[in-house]
């Protein structure tokens, strides 16, 4: 289903897409967001804005999206099911669309336990797959979640979802991806990949089921600043696999940051060779400024233009 999303046009026309991630600040100034948007706008096709990532209170993703649009970059608004019930979600997304947001990424959201409001009550009125399904239905069948018709001006988002090839049970991961596609996901951004071997097995299963022909898969990558960062992801973040050799490589490196960037570039280059992958999603956590170099040196610059 056609939308006004540039990202969708790019992907549909067979280009290898590049998206990045911008984490909104823990304050009320958009200065940083705008700065990053300026910096990234020629190097990526669209940028995700996280929705209170890891359950830490941050500037709203929809508000951030408006600033980013203002800087001439296309935002992908992330919407989690953690903080809003179906009323709030619909209302916020109608608003987002009215402000020019065209891309939507639906997620469950990290549990509040590790955020800065651990005593908060979570909502989880609906889950990510239900959100995908309901937003698709809102667009294509002009229905509110409740089934009540939308008379006019239904929001027409390019709907995305996430997939995590590194979570368990592994053999069900592809099935669940398919479930999301069934629900209406048109593009997929994966969890950041370090265990390339496992990701390739994942893609193999994706291809077996022909899912790559029904959805655009963007492989997630993350440049690491230090071996400690790697170790942290390896041990303390559930649903992540970081092979020891990566930790070792960073440990040995005299300039770990450089090494981190090198590793990331190697990964992107490798990922481009994997059939069925339609783009990369670069999550430079609190390190947005390295994205241009990574894009450039991965041979993904300049970015194609589409009407």
């Amino acid at each position: 289903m056609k939308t006004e999303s540039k990202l969708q046009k790019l992907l549909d026309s067979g280009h290898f897409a590049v998206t990045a991630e911008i984490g909104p600040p823990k304050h009320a100034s958009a200065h940083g967001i705008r700065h990053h948007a300026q910096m990234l706008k020629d190097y990526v096709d669209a940028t995700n804005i996280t929705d209170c990532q890891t359950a830490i209170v941050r500037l709203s993703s929809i508000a951030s999206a408006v600033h980013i649009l203002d800087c001439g970059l296309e935002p992908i608004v992330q919407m989690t099911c953690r903080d809003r019930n179906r009323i709030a979600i619909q209302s916020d997304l109608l608003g987002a669309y009215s402000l020019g947001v065209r891309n939507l990424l639906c997620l469950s959201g990290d549990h509040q336990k590790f955020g800065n409001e651990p005593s908060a009550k979570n909502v989880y009125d609906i889950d990510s797959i239900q959100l995908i399904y309901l937003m698709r239905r809102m667009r294509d069948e002009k229905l509110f979640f409740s089934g009540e018709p939308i008379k006019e001006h239904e929001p027409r988002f390019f709907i995305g979802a996430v997939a995590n090839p590194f979570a368990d049970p592994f053999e069900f991961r592809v099935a669940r991806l398919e479930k999301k596609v069934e629900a209406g996901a048109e593009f997929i951004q994966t969890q950041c990949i370090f265990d390339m071997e496992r990701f390739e097995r994942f893609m193999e299963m994706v291809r077996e089921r022909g899912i790559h022909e029904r959805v655009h898969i963007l492989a997630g990558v993350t440049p690491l600043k230090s071996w400690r960062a790697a170790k942290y992801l390896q041990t303390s973040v559930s649903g992540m696999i970081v092979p020891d050799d990566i930790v070792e490589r960073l440990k040995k490196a005299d300039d770990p940051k450089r090494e981190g960037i090198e590793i990331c570039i190697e990964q992107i280059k490798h990922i481009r060779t994997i059939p069925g992958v339609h783009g990369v999603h670069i999550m430079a956590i609190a390190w947005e400024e390295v994205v241009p170099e990574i894009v450039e040196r991965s041979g993904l610059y300049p970015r194609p233009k589409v009407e």
Partner: protein
Amino acid sequence: MIIAQQKPIKDIAAMIEDCKKVLLVGCAGCVTVCLSGGEKETEVLASSLRIMRRLQGNPLETVTITATRQCDPEYIEPLENLVKDVDAIISLACGVGVQYLAERFHDKWVVPAQNTMFVGGSRTHGVWEERCGLCGDCILHRTGGICPIIRCSKSILNGPCGGSQYGKCEISKDVDCAWQLIYDRMKALGKLDKLMEIQPPKDWSKSRDGGPRKAIREDVMIG
């Protein structure tokens, strides 16, 4: 059963600090079975409070009794003559018992001695686990007899989410991922295809989100 755990003794004492005489009411129902509010606990609490108060030079008089259940009016009716001359009632039952006492003895100060935790069962002696979210609309037949509403920390109906790893939930290594359990069970039962169906949003109006609930059985109502 309902699982409850006793509040810190200091908190309980604080609730009745201005009382001279209190009635402690245990409950021979769930809280006895989960070892937190039977006759034994009731008397241990009474004794502890008395000692505490004597140490403060402000002796406390206690009356203890254990009701067969605190969630049926008939069982608390007989407390009336005991309640008369006390300044407060401490209930060792779950939240239900506390409220039944408060409703029945509306002019009395009724306080809870327990934190009502959840509905669950015992794993081994002394270990209890939550099992039911009281959602009012059971879906266990669709999830291999494992409840994602209460056992998945995100109540996801189309799980498992990306936080599930090595069979554990993202919130803690000691919490099983309910969806891993569901997956394993459905696989063992040869019903994995069921998990491919997209579960529709849940109708929470049947849970407490629809407001305080009431169950009525016309056929058994008397008179």
